[in-house]
């Protein structure tokens, strides 16, 4: 069968795989942002022990490969009695790792805000909450966006790791099709086209969004 015919035949399966990849990305992103927020709160907060735990967590989870985290979430936790379905093991592993990155991005975003800004807001009589909400966070967000969106496109690529635990994402579909057709290059190229098209689309959208946010404020 010609490559194009094959592509036509397998495209629906690949797109179904892409949907799984995107669901995984979305769920892992939510977990990572929540965890990142907690890590920032813990690290900037007053409770020493929490700050130390958060710092330790970041050090360790940044140094361990995602695949090891994934196998831990899938196999090790099961052995210890917590049996996660593959999809959720993927969410936990990716969220646990990307949470450290997002936490760091948020922290440097907050640190990038000039202390004079806080001072000026406080001098106006704004409450602590209002200082954060109206003055610090809007500026920190702007600084957070570029690394944050970069992290997101890495996250999408890393979802492909769940192939190893049998989650039927895009990479899994490609691998299955490669084995079934004996034309691995054709199938992996199709997967590449889908991933790449999505990558380009997403990075364009995110870049435009970033530009918009920046332009609205200058």
């Amino acid at each position, binding site marked *: 069968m010609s490559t194009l015919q094959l592509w036509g035949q397998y495209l629906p399966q690949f797109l179904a795989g892409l949907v799984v990849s995107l669901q995984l990305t979305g769920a892992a992103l939510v977990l990572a942002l929540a965890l990142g927020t907690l890590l920032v709160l813990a690290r900037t907060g007053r409770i020493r022990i929490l700050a130390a735990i958060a710092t330790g967590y970041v050090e360790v989870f940044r*140094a361990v490969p995602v695949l090891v985290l994934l196998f*831990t979430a899938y196999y*090790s936790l*099961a*052995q210890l009695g917590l049996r996660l379905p593959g999809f959720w093991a993927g969410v936990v592993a990716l969220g646990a790792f990307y949470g450290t990155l997002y936490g760091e991005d948020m922290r440097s975003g907050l640190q990038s805000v000039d202390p004079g800004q806080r001072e000026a807001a406080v001098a106006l009589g704004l409450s602590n909450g209002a200082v954060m909400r109206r003055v610090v966070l809007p500026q920190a967000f702007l600084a957070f966006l570029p690394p944050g969106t970069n992290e997101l496109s890495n996250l999408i690529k890393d979802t492909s790791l769940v192939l190893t635990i049998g989650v039927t994402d895009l990479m899994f579909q490609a691998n299955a099709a490669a084995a079934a057709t004996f034309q691995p290059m054709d199938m992996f190229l199709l997967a590449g086209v889908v991933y790449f098209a999505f*990558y380009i689309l997403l990075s364009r959208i995110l870049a435009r969004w970033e530009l918009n946010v920046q332009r609205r404020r200058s």
Partner: protein
Amino acid sequence: MHVVALYWQAIVDGGGVDLELTAIAVAVSVVVGILAAVGRIYGGKLLGGAITVYVEIIRGLPPILQLFIIYFGLSQFQINLSSFSAGLLWLVLYGVGYAVEIFRAGIEAVSVGQREAADALGLTRVQALRKIILPQAWMVMLPSLMTFLVLQVKNTTLLYLVGIADIMYQARLGTSATEQPAIMYGMAAIAYLIINLTLSRIGSTLERRQALYR
């Protein structure tokens, strides 16, 4: 506990394989990366454009897919690479894609004034690069180079998929023999932790040492 004692040596052997591959791949990709970065900045539209596209592809495709294209994909054209060569080739191709960007950013971070000063002295472009720009860029690039090194160590985890006997391969082998994944992947995690934390320590020591010269 005897499981740990039994398999620790295998994990250490796997770590050796990982480090060997990382070292070779990083060395090659640094050299090629510098050349490609220079090509991207000074190489004109065609060369610069080609390098940009290459970088985008490496950054846009999932690592697993890249590895599978090299190992399984090429076999469709009767190019059957050994596990080791496929793994190494991928680490190099991937590494070059990252190193280009690191060196480009480093070179461009050196101020235009420095480049002008080098031109004004009558240095050739290669001389300016070697004597003026790269020594300054080094400081800027050091953190990202260390991140890159750690990233490559982590990337070696994928190599078990093509049958290279790295840490992950050993941990999986151990798991199927003992049915103790918690211990096996725990050992793997510790092994990576030791390697990567050591690398980051070396990196921050170097940074501090470099900062003294400024």
